[in-house]
């Protein structure tokens, strides 16, 4: 094998078996980043939702502006702004990991906050009035009357949005975070088989997202028939 070109030897090293194994290892980071974005984004998004429906005008405006900013700019720019911007502004040396986690969390929180605000506002006004008339405080009404109904409505779109988050993590590759897409790109650079690499990556993304899509649709159907 000594006479072969480096490229050829690299091609030989990267058998299909090795490629798939490497991509699956990288998928762990895609899943980890998605999970962080979803959990962090869910927590921040809950606060955003509370602010959006607050009787306090200032909180409503601030949270509306927050949602509009993150919904109205491309995620890839948000990643750049976080990675480069935070470093410059606060003199931080953010790792790609931290930058990706922060950017995806804020992005997710804006969308989840808005989905949940919609669900809360879809609960009829009469439900608030009934709780009020019974002498329940605002937060008791929210906890015992409004949220239990809103949660049911919000589950299908929330699960559906998880698909967007998983796909969104692929953009973290542009700031150097090594997840599935970045890994596929790197291996294709040495194997010269971009089509194969990106095809396998696409299949892996699909295997992550498709079950969630199906689940979301099923939940939607179930809640629609439950009434």
């Amino acid at each position, binding site marked *: 094998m000594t006479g072969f070109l480096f490229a050829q030897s690299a091609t030989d090293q990267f058998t299909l078996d090795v490629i798939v194994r490497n991509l699956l290892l990288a998928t762990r980071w895609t899943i980890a980043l998605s999970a962080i974005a979803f959990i962090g984004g869910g927590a921040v998004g809950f606060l955003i939702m509370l602010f959006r429906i607050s009787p306090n005008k200032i909180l409503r405006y601030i949270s509306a502006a927050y949602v509009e900013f993150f919904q109205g700019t491309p995620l890839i720019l948000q990643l750049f702004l976080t990675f480069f911007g935070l470093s410059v502004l606060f003199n931080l040396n953010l790792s790609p990991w931290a930058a990706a986690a922060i950017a995806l969390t804020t992005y997710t929180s804006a969308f989840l906050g808005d989905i949940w605000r919609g669900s809360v506002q879809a609960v*009829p006004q*009469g*439900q608030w*009035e*009934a709780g*009020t*008339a*019974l*002498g*329940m*405080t605002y937060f*008791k009404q929210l906890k*015992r*009357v409004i949220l*239990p*109904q809103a949660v*049911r409505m919000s589950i299908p779109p929330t699960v559906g949005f998880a698909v967007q988050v998983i796909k969104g993590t692929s953009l973290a590759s542009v700031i150097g975070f090594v997840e599935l897409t970045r890994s596929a790109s790197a291996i294709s650079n040495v194997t010269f088989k971009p089509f194969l690499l990106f095809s396998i990556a696409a299949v892996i993304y699909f295997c992550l997202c498709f079950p969630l899509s199906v689940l979301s649709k099923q939940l939607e159907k179930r809640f629609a028939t439950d*009434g």
Partner: protein
Amino acid sequence: MTQFDSMGAIATADDSKDAVIVAQDVEKWYSNKFHVLQGVSLTVHRGEVVVVMGPSGSGKSTFIRTFNALEPYQKGSIEIDGIKLTPNMKNVEAVRREVGMVFQQFNLFPHLTVLQNVMLAPVEVRGWKKEQAKQVAGELLERVGILNQANKFPGQLSGGQQQRVAIARALAMQPKVMLFDEPTSALDPEMVSEVLDVMRTLAQSGMTMVCVTHEVGFARQVADRIVFMADGLIVEEGTPQEFFGNPKHDRTKQFLAQILH
């Protein structure tokens, strides 16, 4: 108090100091400047049943919704059982828990069973133990004839049954006064009487009630006093006999001609 003294049995039964609701010159503007209440005064005594009638848009629902501060008002004063309802008051919930309300659209909590609907406020607001709340809820559901449906969800009940549950839910807080905001207007005709029967029994048990309703039969039989509102004002009030038999104002006569056919 003159109108009140003319009411015979009611005047003797009630003490003028024993007022549950005292509303004086209540005025309210909607945010679009519409003057919905133009100085409305009403005193409701303990044990009294007052029926508020009037054409739609007269402000009658808005008026009774000021009694538990569901609607803010801008001028005048309202006292509920001696407590003044003021804008930005700190403990408005303390007043609200003494005032039960039944809505046109029932507004039961769809995610809770009938029993849980009735138990919720006593547990959450009054701080009762679950056992105690359950027992009281059971008694109330029996009183309104729904005990056998206690574990169903509101969506599984008819409109009339739902409204009876809503009455039980309001009563569970042991309010000093009950407000009814067109409780039978959203019901199919065959379900109206079952709700009115419950309200009639409640009135006989001595509950103080203010009912906005178009049910003439109920008003005639149950009301101690009928208040007629039009264009944000009380035009006329009197006993059912006076009101239906000998209305004084043209506006009242016109209204009665329309609803009595």
